[in-house]
């Protein structure tokens, strides 16, 4: 007897919703095994990693704080991913958005204009879009693979940040630390809930989810992008421009990543440093996939991903494990999701083995 995948007559809707849950369950399970292998008590490890971070209201507030850049980036990326536009450089777009928005704040340092903060956010979005426009242009004009070019631009963006904070933008009174001066109160996002760090960026994130939902489900342009992604030939036959899909997909990702970047700089960090993002731009790809590229799904998967980040910090503090353990969990989650997705199109059948 032998197990064999058999194609379903049509993709299973139920499985497409169950698959992310199955993936999360498998991730929890392998987490228990991982803790066991590392010589920690699995129960204790699980508690420290997944429950400790959200055991009080402050922790839950931090969860939403960390989920904000993830949901912003992920909703932008999902627009492109639906159309098979592979922008994997959101991390770089996030950094450039942080630089342009933060640069505006530094330029108008001390300004009390009420337009400063909105201006910074627009500048952040434009910065991210400009960085994303490079691979979009190279793809549509020169046919260059956007996966590789957008990724290369992440490394370049990191070096631009490094150059600015070590050089021209370094705070002269900052004891030679590679960072800019702190942004003024007028250039800082207002706190939503007294006693926590949750700021107005969360509203931007939820707003982005709404806009994303309307764009993908209620607009003709969004419909065209979906068709182009699911059936390239049908899309071309219907006259939907593939180039336009690339541009919209890349720019949406860039704009949202840029807003995420400036929200970090004018939010919890308060200045430009070399450590603006612990890989939010990459983790957001996982958030987008686990959220089934839908805004509602992305809302929940960004919270889960934020929990993985916080769990890593807890594990470092209380279990003496490197915080990079959260990236191991992130990678496992994506693998489990991709694996579970097989059941959307296939079912397992017992067959007799042919001789």
């Amino acid at each position, binding site marked *: 007897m032998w197990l064999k995948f058999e194609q379903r007559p049509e993709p299973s809707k139920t499985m497409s919703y169950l698959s992310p849950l199955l993936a999360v369950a498998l991730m929890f399970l392998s987490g228990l095994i991982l803790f066991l292998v590392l010589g920690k008590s699995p129960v204790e490890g699980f508690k420290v990693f997944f429950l400790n971070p959200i055991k009080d209201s402050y922790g839950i507030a931090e969860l939403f704080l960390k989920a904000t850049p993830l949901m912003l980036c992920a909703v932008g990326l999902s627009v492109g991913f639906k159309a098979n536009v592979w922008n994997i450089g959101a991390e770089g777009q996030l950094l450039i958005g942080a630089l342009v928005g933060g640069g505006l704040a530094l330029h108008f340092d001390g300004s009390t204009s009420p337009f400063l903060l909105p201006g910074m956010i627009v500048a952040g979005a434009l910065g991210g879009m400009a960085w994303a426009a490079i691979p979009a242009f190279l793809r549509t004009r020169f*046919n260059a693979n956007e996966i590789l070019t957008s990724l290369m631009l992440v490394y370049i963006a990191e070096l631009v940040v490094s150059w600015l904070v070590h050089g021209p933008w370094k705070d002269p009174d900052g004891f030679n630390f590679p960072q800019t001066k702190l942004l003024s109160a007028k250039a800082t996002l207002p706190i939503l809930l007294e006693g926590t760090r949750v700021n107005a960026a969360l509203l931007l994130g939820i707003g982005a989810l709404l806009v994303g939902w309307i764009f993908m489900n209620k607009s003709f342009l969004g419909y065209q992008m979906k068709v182009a992604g699911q059936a390239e030939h049908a899309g071309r036959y219907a006259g939907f421009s593939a180039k336009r899909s690339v541009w919209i997909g890349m720019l949406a990702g860039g704009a949202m990543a840029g807003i995420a970047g400036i929200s970090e700089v004018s939010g919890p960090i308060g200045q430009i440093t070399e450590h603006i993002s612990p890989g939010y731009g990459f983790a957001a790809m996982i958030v987008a996939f686990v959220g089934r590229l839908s805004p509602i799904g992305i809302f929940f998967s960004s919270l889960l991903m934020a929990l993985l980040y916080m769990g890593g910090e807890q594990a470092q503090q209380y279990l003496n494990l490197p915080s990079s353990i959260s990236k191991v969990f992130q990678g*496992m989650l994506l693998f489990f999701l991709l694996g579970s997705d097989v059941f959307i199109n296939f079912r397992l059948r017992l067959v007799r083995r042919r001789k």
Partner: protein
Amino acid sequence: MGLNFISSILFATVVAGTPLIIVALGELVTEKAGVLNLGAEGTMSVGAVAAFAVAHHTGNPFLGILAGMGAGILMSLLFGISALTLMANQVASGLALSIFGVGLSAFIGKPYESVALASVEPIRIPLLHKIPLFGPALFEQQGLVYFSWVLIVLVAWFLYRTKAGLVLRAVGESPVSAHSIGYGVVKIRYQAVLFGGAMAGIGGAFMSVFYTPMWVEGMVAGRGWIALSLVVFATWRPARVMIGAYLFGGCMIAQMFVQGSGVRINIPAQALSAMPYAATVLVLVLISRNRSTIRLNSPASLGQTFLPDA
């Protein structure tokens, strides 16, 4: 600019190009079978840390290479299960492998961050290594440098002069035809993917055991992605991989050029470090500009999932 300076630049260029050659050739074979594995960066990272750990504990760099290779095979097996057995999207599976591998290597490597390995003596070819200018670059190198040259010949010979290579290319061009005349497409693709993983692991081992020799989180620094771009640059031809790898190797040691040339130029160090990445983008643009070059040379089924019974 002395002769010695040029000689040492040539030497450093060859060293910097070596991991790129090895990793890119592995990926080339994988892609020739029609599989796009974007996981090279993660596979290299895990290979590098595994090799470093084993070389550190055993004191034997050769065992380190084997460990890197083994780790690379295991990593690519994950990709194979996802993209070949479970028929998941190849791009997403490769990204997963890169994210997972980079994270896993940082996690495993933490205790080794403050450890240094003794540098390994190069293998000197008698007499030849004394040739001025080219001697050190070509004949006073680590074993893996010579290995990379042998690998180019072997891969080219395998792909274009053996039956197995012909079958592998057929699988990459038209998996449905290959399947219908009785070749096991998934099996052949697995072999190609595992070979690619083994090479990416060895490339990582070269980085951590011979090149630096130490382990730092993120030390692979995009070389896996650059190797992927090299395959496009080489238009899927093994010999051209070498040319590209040395061009990039030269680019990576640009800092040395500038510092050693004695010319005082006011360029930030970061601009020099960005050169290989900018060069990668440039090269991709130059090659891809001509659509027919890409269409004629890339394996026809590249990146497409093969459904055995569809």
